[in-house]
């Protein structure tokens, strides 16, 4: 094929274009926001219909674990943002370290989540368990939404962490560099989204009073 006769824009889809990839990432984040938006809508309606039950059920959650997780996520958000700064300034090593810190925070978050969920399982609060089935309907809805929403969020935490891991390899291999940091930036954007959603989940489930 004689490609020299072809008219191809420099930022064509077959080349690399930092702006396109960032725009694509933002658009994807909007869909994620609305995906959780649907769940928030359901939460709002059922909370409105079952105010007392939601309050009662929320006492079963451990505020301190939730708060710790909030701080862990916020911190990880800062470290990944700094990792981008570091790479932009050409400090590859610091960037990799900060990315690893972010992944470590993701793991801490999931471990705390594991213990939280574990405690609920022990007491039979998971949908379908005996104790759950004896609860009044409003509380059942609360726990259903709690598991659904934090579960879906946890899936996003895992995806985000794997994404960052993938990017770290890219930095090591020299595919993600000072001049071409889109991938790191996008993984960061995704990670911040995970944080954003948790910022709303935390007060809605843990801080009802």
């Amino acid at each position: 094929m004689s490609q020299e006769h072809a008219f191809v824009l420099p930022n064509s889809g077959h080349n690399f274009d930092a702006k396109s990839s960032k725009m694509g990432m933002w658009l994807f984040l909007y869909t994620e926001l609305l995906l959780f938006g649907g769940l928030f809508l359901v939460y709002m309606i059922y909370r409105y219909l079952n105010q007392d039950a939601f309050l009662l059920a929320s006492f079963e959650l451990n505020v301190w674990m939730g708060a710790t997780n909030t701080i862990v996520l916020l911190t990880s958000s800062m470290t990944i943002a700094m990792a981008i700064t570091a790479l932009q300034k050409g400090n590859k090593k610091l960037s990799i370290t900060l990315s690893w810190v972010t992944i470590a925070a993701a793991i801490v978050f999931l471990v705390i989540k594991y213990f939280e969920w574990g405690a609920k399982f022990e007491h039979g609060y998971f949908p379908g368990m005996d104790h759950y089935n004896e609860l009044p309907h409003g509380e059942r809805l609360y726990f259903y939404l709690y598991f659904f929403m934090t579960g879906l969020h946890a899936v996003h935490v895992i995806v985000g962490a794997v994404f960052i891991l993938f990017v770290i390899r890219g930095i090591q291999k020299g595919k993600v560099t000072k001049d071409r940091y889109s991938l790191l930036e996008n993984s960061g954007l995704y990670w911040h989204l995970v944080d954003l959603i948790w910022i709303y989940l935390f007060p809605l489930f843990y801080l009802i009073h």
Partner: protein
Amino acid sequence: MTVAALSQPNFFQAKKGIASWLFTLDHKRIGLLYLYSIGFFFIVAAGLGVLMRLELLNPGRDLIDAQTYNQVFTLHGVIMIFLFIIPSIPAVFGNFALPLLLGTDDVAFPKLNLISWWLYVIGALFALFTLFYGDGPADTGWTFYAPYSVRTGTNVSMTVMAAFVLGFSSILTGLNFIVTIHRLKTPGMGFNQMPLFAWSLYATAWIQLLATPIIGITLLMIVAERVLGIGLFDPSIGGDPILYQHLFWIYSHPAVYIMALPAMGIVSEVIPTFAQRTIFGYKAIAYSSMAIAFVGYFVWGHHMFTSGMSGPAGFIFSILTFFVAIPTAVKVFNWVATLYKGSISIEVPLLFALAFIFNFSIGGLTGLVLGALATDVHVHDTHFVVAHFHYVMFGGAGFAFFGALHYWFPKIWGKMYNKAMANLAFILLFIGFNLTYFPMLIVGIMGMPRRYYDYLPEFHEMNMLSTFGSWIMITGLIIMIINLVVSKQRGAKVSGNPWNGITLDWQTSSPPPLHNFDKMPVLPEGGPYNYPDAISTHEEKEKKDDE
């Protein structure tokens, strides 16, 4: 008009072999992959439609029993909506034509584009899979209304997962198009120099992007409710079925515009080409696409007037619904004004575009009947609704799809179909279509409910007419498909630009080379539809007369 040097291999010749198709990153090939897969499912679902009409030929049980009928209309709906009409124009012609219209070599994310097609295939397989195990395909209707969708023993979960995966495919296509339009317009082309099909795809893409996630999460909740038995939407265990309807229609009403807007884009391409005249009100048409997309988000409640939604909410939704009519009418008037004093050549694509305007007007006006609170109560869930949305979806979007197929056929294959056969097919389709669906409007007003395999004797004549219509229509379809398939193999070769179009897609050879353009395409001066001989304004005409 520059036509590429003959030495360049076209995109069919550039690579060979099955894998070069299944894993292609070329937008033109992906568009064709969509065309073949979507065409297959359209034929399947059209067959189911004919089967339903056959059952309704006479009152009572003729062919299939009530339960089978329920499953047939569900499958017909699911396939037609999620596998045909939503992806149809954007995925097939959007993929094929958008980069050509923008004068660029591909979409912004070619790999993502391929992934979208594969997700489509996976979703389609899920939907087909429901046929072969357990109690068969879902019998809920394509709306999956709770609580029935939670309780029925048929394969609702699988069908719903199919819709979920297809939703993902749709989101990724939309995302791709938005970035493409923002980033990959050819040098010199701004938003206001874009062809109108690109505008309508842009508006569509925003709906795909922002509405689809809501249905995604809702469908996941249906699956969770079925598996875990939580009363989220089932009132017997404390859920609220109307909340499900809200969530469902928050997506599914805007989705109607995913189907209609690209069709309007096709009409806006076809009419100026065959009138050889500047489009009347370019900006009005472009911005009304955005307006329809925007207003489309605010009107979902008009599907729920009789379902127990509150009075004030119904009132607001009814008012908002009427606003959609405004930008739609703006388009129709502009199309008609474009034809005025144009040098019209009656070709098959134009016939389909005109049929679109005719059918869509009937569909739109009957829509106003349904959008008004008071009248909706009487015709809700009758055949009137069935006829209304077939006028909009099939008579509108479906006809535009066929029109686009005939419009870009010489672009895609570099050959021309048999025009006499195509005209015949069009006439049969148009007559058959109206004969099938117009009687439904009448029996609907008389009170015949939808989704029953049986009906009262007084509806018999109209139903017979309708079934006869479906036979004419299917004959037209078969002739059209055979004509196109045969012409693709044996049609007469045509020049790169048989319609004398001036949008950029006609500035390259037909079929286009792999990279679309050999050199930078030249934008027509003074707007995308500024035909050299066109008389665009009254003043210009007078000036010309004076000379």
